[in-house]
């Protein structure tokens, strides 16, 4: 069954709600359209001289960094004089586009004073707009440069008038205490006479500009060069290059208003001005603008202008403000130029710089006008101190000569004459009252030399004085420590120079002493005498004594060192450079330079009282301190010996060679030597032996190798004789000295073979002795060697001992026995050697005495080697 249902009648909607969608879209589109038409902006045309850096659609118009428009089109103007830039401005900016509105192109600009428009490097150039007043318009002429003030950059604008622009330029900084506070924003000519520089000062510094502020140019470098020196001044580097203006500010004045007028000074000095005054004169020949006004040699002002008046010339002058208090009612001004006279030239620099106006201060209220005098006003006369001076000779002082103290004139010499007794020169002098207190008791005067050249080892000093010293001479005061004032008419000393004066005082404090020397000792008059390297005196005189053939040296020693002159005092000459070199090291002693060149004498003290008179001048410190005695040696001419060669006893230095002279007949060497005081007595026996030790290189080794470096030396061995002598004959070979009670005997052989001096004697391979000497037997039948065996081994030897030659290598070749090679130690192969064997035990019966003779066997009997007597050590 079909269920009948009531049909649901749905009224068909004519329009679906979906139709709202197009309506909305339409409304939205319409609104957007209307909006875009409304906001399409205002089109303005700006005329630029060129369109550098501008692009259609890209270059923006900005106001305070906010984009307010965009370049829509660029076209060349009708006259081809520039470009018309059509700019589409934001519709919101239309109220600001008026007659006074300014447009200008902002480009990056790097200059000395800074970099502007840095942002344009990225965003490109843009047009900046400064809204202005007036009726609305749509065509503008672009500004060439940015207008001075842009809102938000508020500050103070001042106008500074100047005669010339100098190196100022737009952008030149304004400094206040060297802080940049603003800059020059423009300049223009005002009625062809003045330049008006417009400067902008930032708001935070605007209050520094007062109505009485002074502006001055700090452009570039200010160089003030005169004969007295060069002064270079500059502000910041930027101002050197770009110019700049500095200004002052006072605390109390009112702040300057906008557009206030100031004038620009050339320099700070001018800006600060000073006191203006007028000097009247009949003529102004040597005065010019900038002529300096001097006070005690310091410039305190200058002439600024010269004006011709009815009765002469008026000079406008300016005294620098810091010296303004010097000006008083009784101040006087006078013209002073270079003064050329026989005295010399005073102020020769003024020949170049022109005259100056001199000034003296005074008392009373300053005036507006002063007369310009032609001469220095005479100072008031005062009481002078009259004195008499004495001198041995006249060191070139004549009447009129100046008296000086520290090169300041303190008085004059009135007259010079011989005294009544004709023994001295007398001077009458006058000391100015101001300086009379300088002259005290004990003071003296030294004649000044116009030109003094002092050359000594300390250096060369050249002193010159002014010309008046040349012509008249001058006296310099040397004050004494005495403070007692001198009375009028007192007399003082005059010395020709300061060293004379010193000597005069020194000579009162000396001790003299005489020394004898064999030679001139390299000293001259004035050579210093040292004690512990301090100068305590000097050589006064050197005399040769014919009778003694020696020299007498007079020395003087300062009194304060008198205690050094005792019976222990010795003197020796200073050597400039003493090098004590040995294999143990080098000791170098350098005398003071003065002593090295002038020569010198040193004083020393011995530990004990000296042996001789204490008058002898020793050659060296060592000799002096050791109180050496002299000996004379004679050597064959073949000997090589040098000065300073040591004399040794068993290696100890007991003396040294002083001089080596080859005799006239060239046959021998005369050697003068010292034996040191302590040892002299041990080696003065008549038979003391002196022998040369030189290096000897042999297969047995090197003897005295140190002489390779040091050179040969003399070996000494004391004698036994009771007779003493100081003259010896030297030996070439060092004789054997039986120091240790060695056993000596003689070995004879028909041939020396390789036996040599020093060839060792071996007992069972141990060296027990050596060959000391060898000689040919007088009849020529063989050789004999003197041999010694050390004391400790003497018991090994008796008359049963046999000796054989160990030297070399023995090769024994037989047909059946084979080859037999016999050698000793390596040393014996090289240097030879003597073998020793003893058959019997040593006893008192078979003991040998000195000079016992053995004969040397050339071969060894094998039997001998089996001998082994048990020897009892002694």
């Amino acid at each position, binding site marked *: 069954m079909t269920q009948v249902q009531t049909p649901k009648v749905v009224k*068909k*909607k004519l*329009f*679906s709600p*979906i*139709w*709202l*969608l*197009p309506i*909305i*879209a*339409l409304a939205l*589109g319409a609104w*957007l359209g209307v909006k875009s038409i409304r906001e399409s902006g205002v089109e303005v045309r700006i005329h630029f001289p060129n369109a550098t850096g501008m692009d259609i*659609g*890209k270059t923006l118009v900005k106001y305070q960094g906010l984009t307010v428009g965009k370049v829509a089109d660029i076209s060349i103007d009708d006259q081809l004089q520039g470009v018309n830039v059509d700019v589409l401005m934001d519709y919101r900016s239309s109220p600001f586009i008026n007659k006074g509105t300014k447009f200008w192109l902002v480009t990056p600009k790097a200059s000395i004073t800074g970099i502007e428009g840095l942002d344009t490097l*990225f*965003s*490109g150039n843009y047009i900046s707009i400064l809204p202005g007043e007036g009726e609305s318009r749509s065509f503008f002429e672009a500004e060439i440069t940015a207008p001075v003030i842009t809102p938000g950059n508020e500050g103070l604008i001042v106008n500074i008038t100047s005669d010339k622009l100098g190196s100022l330029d737009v952008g030149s900084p304004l400094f206040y205490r060297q802080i940049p506070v603003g800059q020059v924003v423009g300049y223009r000519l005002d009625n062809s006479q003045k330049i008006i520089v417009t400067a902008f000062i930032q708001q935070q510094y605007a209050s520094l500009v007062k109505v009485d502020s002074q502006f001055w140019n700090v452009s570039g470098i200010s160089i003030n060069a005169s004969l007295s020196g060069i002064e270079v001044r500059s502000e910041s580097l930027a101002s050197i290059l770009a110019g700049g203006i500095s200004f002052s500010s006072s605390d109390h004045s009112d702040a300057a208003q906008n557009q206030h007028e100031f004038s620009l000074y050339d320099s700070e000095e001018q800006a600060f001005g000073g006191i203006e005054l007028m000097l009247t004169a009949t003529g102004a020949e040597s005065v010019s603008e900038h002529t300096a006004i001097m006070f005690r040699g310091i410039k305190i002002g200058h002439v600024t202008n010269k004006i011709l008046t009815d009765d002469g010339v008026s000079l406008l002058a300016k005294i620098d403000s810091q010296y303004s208090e010097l000006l008083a009612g009784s101040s006087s001004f006078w013209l002073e130029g270079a003064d050329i006279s026989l005295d010399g030239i005073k102020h020769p620099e003024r020949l170049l710089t022109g005259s100056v106006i001199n000034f003296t201060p005074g008392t009373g209220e300053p005036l507006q006008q002063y007369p310009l005098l032609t001469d220095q006003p005479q100072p008031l006369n005062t009481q002078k101190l009259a004195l008499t001076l004495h001198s041995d000779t006249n060191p070139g002082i004549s009447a009129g000569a100046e008296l000086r103290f520290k090169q300041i004139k303190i008085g004059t010499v009135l007259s010079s004459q011989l005294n009544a007794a004709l023994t001295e020169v007398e001077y009458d002098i006058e000391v100015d009252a101001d300086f009379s207190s300088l002259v005290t008791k004990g003071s003296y005067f030294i004649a000044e030399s116009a030109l003094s050249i002092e050359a000594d080892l300390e250096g060369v000093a050249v002193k010159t004085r002014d010309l008046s010293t040349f012509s008249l001479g001058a006296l310099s005061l040397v004050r004494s420590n005495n403070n007692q004032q001198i009375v009028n008419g007192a007399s003082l000393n005059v010395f020709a120079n300061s060293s004379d004066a010193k000597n005069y005082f020194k000579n009162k404090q000396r001790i003299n002493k005489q020394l004898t020397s064999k030679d001139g000792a390299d000293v001259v008059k004035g050579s210093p005498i040292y004690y512990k390297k301090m100068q305590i005196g000097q050589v006064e005189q050197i005399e040769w004594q014919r009778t003694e053939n020696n020299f007498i040296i007079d020395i003087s020693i300062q009194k304060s060192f008198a205690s050094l002159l005792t019976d222990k005092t010795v003197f020796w000459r200073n050597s400039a450079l003493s090098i004590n070199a040995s294999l143990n090291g080098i000791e170098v002693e350098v005398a003071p330079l003065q002593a090295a060149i002038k020569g010198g004498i040193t004083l020393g003290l011995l530990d004990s009282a000296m042996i001789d008179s204490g008058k002898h001048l020793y050659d060296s410190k060592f000799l002096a301190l050791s109180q050496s005695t002299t000996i004379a040696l004679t050597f064959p001419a073949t000997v090589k010996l040098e000065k300073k060669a040591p004399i040794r006893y068993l290696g100890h230095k007991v003396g040294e060679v002083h001089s080596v002279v080859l005799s006239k007949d060239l046959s021998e060497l005369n050697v003068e030597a010292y034996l040191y005081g302590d040892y002299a007595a041990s080696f003065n026996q008549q038979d003391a032996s002196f022998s040369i030790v030189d290096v000897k290189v042999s297969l047995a080794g090197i003897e005295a190798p140190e002489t390779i470096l040091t050179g040969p030396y003399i070996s000494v061995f004391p004698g036994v004789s009771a007779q003493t002598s100081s003259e010896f004959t030297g030996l070439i070979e060092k004789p054997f000295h039986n120091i240790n009670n060695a056993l000596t005997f003689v070995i004879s052989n028909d041939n020396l073979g390789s036996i040599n001096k020093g060839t060792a004697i071996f007992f069972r391979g141990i060296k027990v002795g050596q060959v000391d000497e060898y000689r040919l037997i007088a009849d020529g039948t063989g050789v004999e060697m003197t041999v010694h065996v050390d004391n400790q081994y003497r018991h090994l030897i008796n008359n049963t001992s046999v000796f054989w030659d160990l030297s070399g290598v023995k090769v024994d070749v037989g047909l059946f026995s084979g080859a037999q090679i016999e050698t000793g130690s390596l040393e014996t192969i090289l240097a030879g050697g003597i073998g020793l064997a003893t058959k019997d035990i040593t006893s008192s019966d078979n003991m040998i005495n000195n000079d016992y003779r053995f004969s040397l066997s050339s071969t060894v009997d094998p039997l001998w080697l089996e001998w082994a007597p048990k020897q009892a050590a002694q």
Partner: protein
Amino acid sequence: MKSNPNDSTLGKEIGLTCCPTCNKVTCAESACCSRCDTKLIIRDYGSLQKSWALLITAAILLIPANLYPITTLTNQGQVTQDTIFSGIAHLVKTDMIPIAIILFTASILVPLLKIIGLTIYLTAISFKLPISKKNLMMGFHIIEWIGRWSMLDLFVISLTVAVVNMGQLLDAKPAPAATAFALVILLTQLAAKVIDTRLLWDRLETKNDSSTNT
């Protein structure tokens, strides 16, 4: 009602309809699908209206989409705004013609043709224009298929915006036209989606197909 079902017989004529959700063939009288309870509608005549409304909206929005800039590019402080067409012109200027063709097709040609195509389609249904239903249907399918490719432009913009972001140096931002353009694409897609294509058969089948088919 005719009772000779042949290949051109409509379901509606024999009292049958199809569930729009599960495609179950149901008796036309029943209000709901016996399987999925979806409300059964034999023909949605309102869809034609909806489609028209959406299409007109899209057509309106096509104007701002093309007039307004679609991207704002900041290159070293210089701001440039590009409309779709200026972008393509720029590509042509820089000798990237293949890309320009793709962009032109996707961004200008396709939306425009789609709107025109849909307009023809809807007009044909609404005013019973004598156009072959097969041709219409083929065109409709093409429109439906190609429509999605119009999003290419927006896809590129969204990618660029995400990737290019270097402040003052280089920055890309979508501009107002992007929204409008997106809406055009969306609305045309919807317009094609909402229309009940069966209406086409009702209106046109009887008239012309017989002639075209025969």
